């Protein structure tokens, strides 16, 4: 990161002066990096370390932790003790099913967002320059409203006396309302709706960069429109698709409000389970251990996905 002038000076200077200059440059680099490092350490790693530490402590009677080392929190993530005989241990099926539901719902949300987001982004990328900004603006409008309010709005639409059911019944298509609220379906609808823009925007950015002449070239070389999409568009917007998928998957797997409002009490996801431990459950170490587990799952998913996605490396890196 030396400037040209510095390099010129270094060239002209005798060897020991050169070494001193290099040292000074190194010191200055650390000085310049310092603010970023402070933010990273304090704001990102700090709280994480606290959570990690709490997961190895003992729960306090009224919440909080007692400073006594204990692996019980981590133990309870995976195993349950019999109420009458604490020595009898079995796998914690309730936790396993919540983990599974969270991963599965987050994955399904990502797929739905990709399927809806791809044509949406394509549509916007192919509008004339003037109207594109307007469409992008429209896509981001939902972000203006509070998440909770938007989620309640969805509840209004899909509940038994809600818009969808009343219209279907008025049309005579169904006799009794379809139970949609408080199902996994409701959670999926809610999350897909909330996170769709996070898929559309990076996809759009990738499509906007796509050279239309590449599509013409493929079309000229006997590819049908579908094959142009498959062989040229898809590989070239893959970075956008990956970015969008990550942006959707991570908040989906940690979603709290949506499963709470649309899934009712019955359909828990991980974040709700964690909240339960810090609230009613009064078991902070378990909550902390669950939170760390969630983090590990996300990191693992990211790792697998990036490995899988970069199998044939980034096209622009050649």
């Amino acid at each position, binding site marked *: 990161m030396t400037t040209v002038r510095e390099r010129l000076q270094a060239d002209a200077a005798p060897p020991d002066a050169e070494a001193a200059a290099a040292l000074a440059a190194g010191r200055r680099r650390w000085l310049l990096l310092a603010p970023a490092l402070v933010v990273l350490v304090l704001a990102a790693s700090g709280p994480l370390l606290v959570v990690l530490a709490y997961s190895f402590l003992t729960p306090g009677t009224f919440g909080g932790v007692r400073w006594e080392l204990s692996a019980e929190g981590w133990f309870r993530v995976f195993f349950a003790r019999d109420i009458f005989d604490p020595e009898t241990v079995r796998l914690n099926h309730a936790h396993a099913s919540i983990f599974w539901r969270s991963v599965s719902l987050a994955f399904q949300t990502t797929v739905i967002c990709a399927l809806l987001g791809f044509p949406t982004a394509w549509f916007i990328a192919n509008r004339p320059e003037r109207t594109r900004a307007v469409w992008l603006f429209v896509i981001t409008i939902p972000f203006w409203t509070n998440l909770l309010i938007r989620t309640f709005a969805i509840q209004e639409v899909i509940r038994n006396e809600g818009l969808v059911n009343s219209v279907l019944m008025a049309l005579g298509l169904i006799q009794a309302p379809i139970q949609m609220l408080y199902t996994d379906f409701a959670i999926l609808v809610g999350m897909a709706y909330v996170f769709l823009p996070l898929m559309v925007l990076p996809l759009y950015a990738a499509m906007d960069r796509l*050279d239309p*002449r*590449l599509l*013409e*070239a*493929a*079309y*000229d*070389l*006997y*590819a*049908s429109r579908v*094959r142009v999409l498959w*062989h*040229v568009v898809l*590989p*070239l917007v893959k970075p956008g698709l990956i970015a969008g998928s990550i942006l959707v998957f991570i908040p989906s797997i940690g979603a709290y409000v949506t499963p709470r409002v649309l899934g009712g009490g019955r359909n828990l996801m991980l974040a709700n389970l964690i909240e339960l431990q810090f609230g009613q459950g009064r078991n902070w170490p378990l909550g902390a251990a669950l939170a760390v587990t969630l983090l590990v799952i996300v990191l693992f998913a990211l790792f697998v996905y990036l490995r899988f996605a970069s199998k*044939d490396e980034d*096209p*622009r*890196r*050649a």
Partner: protein
Amino acid sequence: MAADGTADVETRARRDGAAAGGTAEIEIVGLTKVFGRGSEAARALDEVNLTVRRGEFFTLLGPSGCGKTTLLRMIAGFEQPTRGAIRIDGRDVAGLGPNRRPVNTVFQSYALFPHMTAAENIGFGLRMLGRPRREVEAKVAEMLRLVRMEPMANRRPAAISGGQQQRVALARALAPRPRVLLLDEPLSALDLKLRKEMQGELKRLQAETGITFVFVTHDQEEALTMSDRIAVMDRGRILQVGSPRAIYDRPADRFVADFIGDTNFLEAVVVRSVGDAATVRLPSGAVRAASVPEGLAPVAGGRVTVVVRPEHAALAEDGELVGVVEEAVYFGTDTHLHVRLDTGGRFTLRRQNMAGDHAPEPGAAVTIRIAESGLRVLRP
């Protein structure tokens, strides 16, 4: 090519066809293209009629914005004509998408697929045609050899030079053996040396494959050196079609004469006119024979413009034109003399430099003689 005997036979057959003067490969009739509507409407092509013969190297030449790309894109199928018809190999291609026309394009920007290697790029068309993998591999290897890119087969476009990308783009368009190859200023992004090299390469490829080339350029020298025939375009119209020699020596109108090469324009009066020959009186009073564009019958006594190429005139003891040298520009092999004529107007001539002699200095009085058949009457 030697490995592929059938291709050789096919090639020869096509070239014989071309030599025989010509089955039509592309026929364009009354082609008109209007972009936009109402007050914003722009006529990019205006009643274009054109026939490209099988196996020939055909060039579209014209200034920027004259509609060359538009014409090419309509042949390829990227744009729909507003009016008129295009026939390729006798078949009307209206309504056929680019993927269903036996035509491939080499884009100015090459448009190589960045996520594929050179070899994969070249094989793309054949794969899309559903050819068996063995055949695709053999053909790609042949194409790599043809454009001399075997060592770069597994490189991505970003990792090869501009000239190499250009060759891959050529190979990609040639691999499916289209009837016609369309090339939109494929050399304009290259530096002069590479450009000369690629001009030779293109001619060689065209000769080896026998495929009809339709080549777009606005470089007149490139057009003259490479083409079998040239169509000169201006503002959406085709002004003249002919061999490079015909276009250069016998331009039909002022635009063509001016656009191609350096030209001297002289005002003259027709003395006599028979068929494609006429005698004209130059401003100096000299009477000379001049050739006349086809179908133009100048009326005796009428005023016409005649052209003389700079190399069709020479300094002489006695000649038709008299003037004073204004400027002498040294070009190495020759010197360009800009002469102010006594009868008004300027005249440029090219004088070859010989060892030991000297071109006239500015201010020298000179007499210019126009070569036999160096005069050409233009359409008004």
